[in-house]
């Protein structure tokens, strides 16, 4: 404890150019992390989360609050555990063998590990890095989640509603029976968002949703996220710091499985409190 604190003192006390990469990689004492003072309602409250791939720990004692109807961005260098962390929120990591999770994730006050996983994933939707539509028609892609959840109402209306929410309806309304593979990459990704929205999730997890897309399509998806804020809580993993700055309300910076800093996006990008955050967002490493 003392050594860690001493190191922290050295790190923060040292003049910035002298920061070594090794210093960035040192674990942080949890009490040093400043959580933002958010008066907002919290949709997800994560406390003391540890995650292991076999013997290898990927997420360390992570504490984070994800506010309702806001966008929270997770940034950090490759392999820092941000995708792994995101995937613990809808328990997708359980599909990987030999993994273990410790700690508590509360969704509206209920621990997600005590919830039925099917119901949880209906409430916490996910959009992946690469567009992954099913080899079915556009209509069937959007209706899939409703059908497997035993929805008995009028599918047509909900499919249209979801496609409208994903800003795709005007482009595909005449081709609903066509294969989803006929769409462009950006359209496919918006289709995947529509598919996730169809079951009306409270939370939408986006795992680098724009990394395979061009800037114009990326802008469309960011616009879409802005509109979805009315009804949906979002957490987005991104490698693109401009995207985090543009599209999110709160940003969390992760490094080597540790949460380093979490605050309002405007604050994190202008006046970061941790030198490692500053070094990362100014492009000095990562």
């Amino acid at each position, binding site marked *: 404890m003392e050594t860690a604190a001493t190191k922290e003192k050295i790190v923060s006390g040292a003049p910035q150019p002298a920061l070594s990469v090794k210093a960035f990689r040192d674990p942080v004492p949890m009490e040093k992390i400043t959580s933002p003072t958010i008066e907002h309602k919290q949709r997800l409250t994560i406390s003391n989360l540890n995650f292991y791939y076999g013997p290898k720990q990927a997420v360390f004692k992570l504490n984070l609050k994800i506010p309702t109807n806001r966008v929270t961005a997770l940034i950090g260098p490759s392999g820092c555990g941000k995708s792994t962390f995101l995937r613990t929120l809808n328990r*997708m990591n359980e599909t990987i063998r030999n993994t273990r999770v410790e700690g508590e994730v509360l969704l509206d006050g209920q621990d997600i590990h005590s919830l039925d996983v099917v*119901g949880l*994933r209906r409430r916490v939707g*996910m959009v992946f890095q690469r567009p*992954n*539509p099913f080899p079915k028609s556009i209509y069937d892609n959007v209706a899939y989640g409703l059908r*497997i959840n035993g929805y008995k109402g009028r599918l047509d209306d909900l499919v249209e509603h979801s496609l409208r929410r994903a800003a795709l309806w005007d482009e595909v309304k005449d081709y609903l029976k066509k294969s989803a593979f006929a769409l462009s990459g950006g359209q496919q990704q918006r289709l*995947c968002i529509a*598919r996730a929205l169809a*079951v009306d999730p409270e939370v939408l997890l986006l795992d680098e949703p724009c990394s395979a897309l061009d800037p114009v399509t990326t802008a469309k998806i960011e616009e879409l996220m802005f509109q979805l804020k009315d009804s949906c809580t979002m957490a987005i993993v991104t490698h693109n710091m401009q995207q985090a700055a543009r599209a999110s309300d709160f940003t969390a910076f992760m490094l080597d499985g540790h949460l380093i800093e979490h605050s309002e996006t405007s604050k994190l990008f202008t006046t970061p409190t941790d030198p490692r955050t500053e070094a990362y967002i100014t492009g000095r490493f990562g």
Partner: protein
Amino acid sequence: MSSPRILWRKSLNFVMLTLTGVAAFAVVSVLFLILGYLIWNGGTSLSWNFFTQLPKPVGETGGGMANAIVGSLKLLFLAAVMGLPVGLLAGVYLAEFGGKTFSFIVRYTTDLLNGVPSIVIGIFAYSLAVLPVKHFSALAGGVALGIMVIPITVRSTEEFLRAVPGNMREAAMALGASKWKTIATVVLPAASGGILTGMLLALARVAGETAPLLFTAFGNRFWSQGWGQPIASLPVMIYTYAVAPYDDWHRQAWAAGLVLLALVLLSNLGARFILARSKAV
């Protein structure tokens, strides 16, 4: 400027190229020789009667093999009903659920089963389905062919399921689908073209099997009554007619060979068609 060394290399290159080319040509020409000979002999002996009439009694010329054509189709149907579901489910298990050790055992056993001589499988079916009831039957023939269908179906199913990208499974599970629902509603439909192709090819392969039918389905010169009676099949007919001392029977054996080949070729083409269409989606 060509030194002896370069000359040697060039001529070696030429010789090897020629050898491989000749071998490749030999492969193709063997197939076309068989095809041509079969079409020549079978085509001239083939008539409408062949498809509509029963075999004539020994000594009379003419007649056909209507019962054997229907018999072969019935046997294939039995093989499909008994073998394909087992093969499909085992393939799903290997691709989606299997642990390391047990999967290895299953996979290895499947390969071994694929290599078991068909006559041995015939003996097995004989002791399983003929000896207890003390008479030959279509059912016993179906058991023999059904066993032979399994290993090919297992491996092709597994292969095509593995080719389905993992991110599709993730997408379904992220929407709340259980593992089985994911497999049934996303993975299997995505691989259906390939799986169907594998099944058709497996059936086409056993359609020409003779040995396992000799002492299971046995053969029949008349229409078979129900599934419990001996039944005629094209390969066994070909065998019986080809070794008989009558010219007319020899001609009919050629005709039967041609019909069998056409059946196999058609199902092959059908399989390829299905696969090409499923890839276009």
